[in-house]
């Protein structure tokens, strides 16, 4: 046992014990612990196996930057993989397990990869598997053989297959000032901005506000920094216009000062309150943003720098001060900067022994020297760690004399025993959000770090984010930034007094100690310093290429700890400076975002759907509902034991012989009104509507501007200046938009209003030879005979005391009427029609029967008006008026659109008495082994009760000329091949005598 709980200290609640499990073993921690701090408190330092080499890994950091300690959290059978242990708050009953190991973390077969380490260098997979097949062991085919094994061996955690029952929600927020980060800078900024009723949101990714104040050990205004932070938090919480969002990671900075944030609402609880989401995804629109996101410490790169027990110095300090956990009993620190000395002193105060402080620099500041004395242990300046010992836990280090200028190591390596090595390679401001919303970041030679770029959006930086590393500067910057963001005058109040050691913020430009052995840059993707150099030797000059080739910084941590060291090594190999090599641009997300939070409520039962006014009746009367776009429509009303085909054949026969009723409420309906309405319709339809008398309907066809058929439907003239246009169900929205576009942008001089009235009207179509009798039986206030209501005529009357409008038109080819009433009366009228139809044997029919009758009639729908066909292809050229220009008229006669070999609408009859499938190809010569030679395709198919055959509609090249010839359907995916006869698309009653009758 090395790491463990310190006897006292930390801001955990020692009175509250919490039990959790890791890899099946039960452990105890305290309220306020993260999984990482609790495991360390229990002496568990090895928590993971690495990505590629399966090397033992421990905890490197204490926050969102953690590359190594990734675990899987289990909630019931739901697995959430790749969660940093540093970001998991423990609770009673928390179940976690380690990843990427088999059979166990302690004994892992995959660790053999480590022995074959040189094989798996950068580009190994490309070099081995991609490209042509050369011999048996190379090439893409070999990859396909090996992939299963490799995918199992490599990678991170395993995703689960269980449905996640958790609730995810979205939230929209608006504020004047958004402050990101709640360290001293963020707290000061929020306070300064929260003046004069300004709305302020303060987002902090960690559960407790305060940032570095929680562990700095400094004194602000005479009180301990952590208490100062708590007091500021309480003050802000009491302000009505301030919203504090702890556990909320701002992960994206988008145009228009819109930011995306993820609030982990109850990941830290065993049970959610009723209705409480697990995560809340915030979209925040901010007037101004204060970025106070702090800085990430970066490790030094040296051989063996990945053994469990090697940790960032700032993290070690944080475990000791915030969590009361000692990451080791005998600690060595290795650094190139002053900040580590404060960590050393803190670790000593918490009860650890400091074996040595090793500083690659020869000279250090007086402040650092004083802290070193406080910490005790040997101070070795001008030295470097060159190796570590211990595999699953650090047991010691080797140190040599080091000259930073020449990078020369000298003297005999010396062994020092240690169970924890705390390292620091300097600090990198967390400029991720600024990089998303700014130009290229600026390299600062003194701080050896990229500083925030020039903003391209309205944000202001403060604190360590901005390269201000002392708390005094940080608070001053935060206060100024908050005031500026709020458009307020800067406060004249005296800034708080801060007592802190005087340290030099500038590190030495040292990133790597070159000695023998694997030295890791990216711990999460197992990228070594040698991989970076190999990439350089192989000609990868651009940092963007380097990143993709080595996968450096491309893991779930997005290289928070590895980017700058990787660049430095690349620059060194290329003989360039870091700014010359440049950096990649950070992209969202800053930290992991579960897909559930992005999908939020738009799935499952909450998916938008549209119901017709008669929906409940359909369901109660045995309809099988079918999804058509967002609409739910009856497919069939099956009787017990009936197949779908039996049901629609029965429904179709009843309509053709008697009468049936179908819900047509889903048809798009657009009110077109105004003095120029008729003129407008003449322009958008291919045929004339200005000549249509009041109370008459006409079938209309629309083209797109390039001459392709767009939509069809009937339009009714209800008054001189008022039309009701109907569209296909699927195109209702598109047609509406089409009309609005022309009225707004092309013909603004036309006085026409369009309004969607699809939902205003319930519609029922009554079809069949007995439909007139049914209508006559229930209609009041108007006659419905041929004189009063001829084909395409419109009458107004009442059915069961409800006003209705009836138009005599037919989709089925039978005598038929469409009856419309206010949607709220839909069910009432429908039931009245059913009752009136009962003596005539009326049946309700669904989409299948509707489709069957339209195929028998050769009517086109969206399957044929598919965005590729012209009016002529569909034999609708009779609708193209020569008396006026219309949308599409100028382009529709182009050579390619009138060519004789274009696909044309035909009918097909199955000659092997088997069903046809929509989408099957039509071929002249059948060759199932080598399907080819498509001359068209089947667009719709059914069993035709009137013909007693399986038939279909098809679009076939030169189709009309093929009438009476044979061809074949070729449908290799569904293995349906067979002969068909090509015929006219008018299968049934081509003269239309039935609907006129």
């Amino acid at each position, binding site marked *: 046992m090395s790491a463990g709980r310190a006897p006292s200290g930390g801001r955990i609640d020692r009175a509250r014990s919490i039990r959790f499990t890791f890899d099946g073993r039960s452990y105890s921690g305290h309220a306020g612990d993260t999984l990482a701090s609790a495991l360390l408190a229990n002496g568990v330092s090895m928590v993971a196996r690495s990505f590629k080499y399966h090397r033992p890994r421990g905890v490197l950091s204490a926050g969102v930057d953690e590359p190594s300690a990734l675990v899987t959290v289990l909630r019931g059978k739901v697995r959430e993989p790749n969660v940093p242990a540093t970001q998991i708050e423990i609770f009673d009953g928390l179940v976690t397990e380690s990843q990427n190991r088999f059979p166990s973390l302690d004994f892992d077969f995959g660790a053999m990869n480590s022995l074959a380490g040189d094989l798996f260098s950068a580009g190994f997979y490309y070099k081995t598997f991609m490209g042509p097949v050369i011999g048996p062991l190379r090439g893409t085919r070999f990859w396909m053989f090996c992939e299963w094994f490799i995918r199992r061996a490599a990678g991170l955690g395993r995703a689960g297959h269980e449905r996640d029952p958790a609730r995810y929600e979205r939230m929209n927020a608006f504020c004047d000032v958004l402050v990101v980060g709640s360290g001293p800078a963020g707290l000061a900024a929020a306070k300064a901005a929260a003046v004069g009723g300004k709305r302020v949101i303060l987002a902090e990714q960690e559960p407790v506000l305060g940032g570095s104040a929680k562990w700095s050990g400094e004194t602000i205004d005479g009180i301990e920094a952590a208490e100062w932070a708590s007091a500021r938090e309480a003050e802000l919480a009491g302000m009505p216009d301030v919203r504090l969002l702890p556990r909320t990671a701002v992960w994206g900075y*988008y*145009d*228009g000062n*819109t930011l995306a944030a993820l609030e982990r609402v109850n990941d830290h609880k065993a049970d959610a309150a009723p209705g409480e989401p697990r995560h809340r995804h915030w*979209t925040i*629109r901010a007037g101004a943003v204060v970025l106070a996101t702090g800085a990430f410490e970066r490790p030094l790169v040296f051989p063996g720098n990945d053994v469990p027990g090697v940790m960032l110095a700032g993290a070690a300090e944080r475990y000791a001060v915030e969590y009361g956990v000692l990451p080791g009993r005998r600690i060595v620190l290795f650094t190139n900067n002053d900040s580590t000395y404060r960590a050393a002193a803190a670790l000593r105060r918490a009860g650890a022994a400091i074996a040595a402080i090793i500083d690659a620099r020869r000279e250090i500041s007086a402040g650092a020297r004083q802290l070193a004395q406080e910490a005790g242990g040997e101070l070795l300046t001008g030295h470097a760690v060159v190796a570590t010992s211990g595999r699953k836990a650090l047991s010691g280090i080797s140190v040599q004399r080091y000259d930073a200028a020449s990078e020369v190591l000298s003297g005999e390596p010396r062994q020092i025993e240690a169970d924890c090595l705390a390292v620091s390679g300097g600090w990198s401001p967390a400029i991720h959000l600024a990089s998303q919303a700014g130009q290229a970041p600026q390299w600062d030679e003194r701080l050896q770090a990229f500083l925030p770029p020039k903003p*391209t959006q309205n944000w202001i930086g403060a604190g360590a984010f901005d390269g201000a590393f002392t708390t005094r500067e940080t608070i001053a910057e935060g206060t100024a930034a908050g005031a500026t963001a709020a458009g307020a005058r800067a406060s004249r109040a005296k800034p708080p007094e801060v007592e802190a050691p005087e340290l030099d913020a500038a590190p030495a430009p040292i990133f790597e100690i070159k000695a023998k052995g694997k030295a890791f840059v990216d711990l999460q993707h197992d990228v070594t310093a040698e991989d970076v150099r190999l990439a350089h030797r192989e000609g990868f000059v651009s940092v963007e290429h380097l990143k993709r080739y080595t996968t450096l910084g491309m893991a779930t941590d997005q290289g928070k700890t590895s980017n700058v060291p990787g660049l430095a090594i690349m620059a060194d190999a290329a003989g360039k400076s870091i700014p010359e090599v440049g950096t990649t641009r950070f992209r969202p997300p800053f930290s992991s975002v579960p897909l559930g939070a992005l999908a939020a409520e738009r799935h499952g039962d909450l998916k938008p759907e549209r119901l017709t006014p008669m929906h409940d009746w359909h369901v109660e009367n045995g309809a099988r509902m079918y999804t058509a776009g967002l609409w739910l429509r009856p497919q069939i009303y099956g009787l017990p034991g009936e197949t779908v085909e039996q049901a629609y054949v029965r429904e179709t026969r009843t309509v053709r012989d008697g009468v049936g009723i179908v819900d047509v409420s889903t048809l798009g309906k657009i009110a077109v009104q105004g003095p120029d309405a008729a*003129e407008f319709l*003449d*322009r958008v339809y291919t045929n004339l509507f200005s000549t249509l008398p009041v109370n008459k309907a006409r079938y209309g066809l629309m083209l797109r*501007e*390039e001459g392709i058929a767009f939509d069809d439907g009937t339009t009714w003239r209800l008054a001189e200046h008022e039309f009701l246009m109907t569209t296909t169900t699927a195109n209702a929205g598109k047609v509406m*938009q089409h009309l*609005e*576009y022309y*009225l*707004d*942008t*092309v*013909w*603004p*001089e*036309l006085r026409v209003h369009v309004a969607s009235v699809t939902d205003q009207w319930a519609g029922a179509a009554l079809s069949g030879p007995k439909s007139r009798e049914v209508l006559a039986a229930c209609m009041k206030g108007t006659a419905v005979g041929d004189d009063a209501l001829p084909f395409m005529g419109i009458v107004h009357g009442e059915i069961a005391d409800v006003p209705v409008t009836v138009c005599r038109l037919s989709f089925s080819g039978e005598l038929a009427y469409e009856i419309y009433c206010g949607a709220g009366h839909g069910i009432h009228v429908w039931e009245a029609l059913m009752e009136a139809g009962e003596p005539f044997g009326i049946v309700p029919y669904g989409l299948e029967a509707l489709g069957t009758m339209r195929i028998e009639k050769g009517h086109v729908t969206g399957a044929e008006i598919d965005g590729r066909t012209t009016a002529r292809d569909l034999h609708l050229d009779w609708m193209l008026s*020569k*008396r*006026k*220009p*219309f949308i599409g*008229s*100028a*382009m*529709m*006669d*182009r050579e390619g659109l009138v060519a004789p070999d274009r696909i044309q609408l035909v009918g097909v009859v199955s000659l092997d008495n088997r069903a046809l499938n929509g989408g099957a190809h039509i071929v002249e010569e059948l060759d199932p082994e080598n399907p080819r030679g498509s001359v068209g395709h089947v667009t719709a198919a059914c069993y035709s009760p009137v013909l007693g055959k399986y038939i279909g509609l098809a679009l076939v090249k030169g189709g009309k000329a093929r009438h009476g010839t044979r061809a074949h359907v070729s449908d290799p995916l569904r293995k349906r091949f067979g002969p068909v006869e090509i015929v006219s698309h008018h299968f049934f009653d081509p003269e239309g005598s039935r609907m006129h009758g």
Partner: protein
Amino acid sequence: MLITCPYCGPRDLAEFSYQGDANRTRPDPASTDPEAWNAYVYDRANTAGDHREYWQHSGGCRVHLAVTRNTLTHEIKDVALARDGAVKKPSARRKTGAKA
């Protein structure tokens, strides 16, 4: 991306539908000039920089807007109601017998 609708104020991109290049002019409806129609239907400038384009506020007031957007930075420099900017052409009344 936010678009400031002159009627509704700044709204999220999700409320808008892109409705194409706003730099083209529809030829006279009676025109049979294939070049002019081809240019209207197919030719697009593909500007790298300020681009005038139509956006419909389909999830709001449903009005078409003429938006000047920088295609490199997404910066929106101007938004106006499309009908205010649409060239007031003489009402294109039907010409009997005119074949398109």
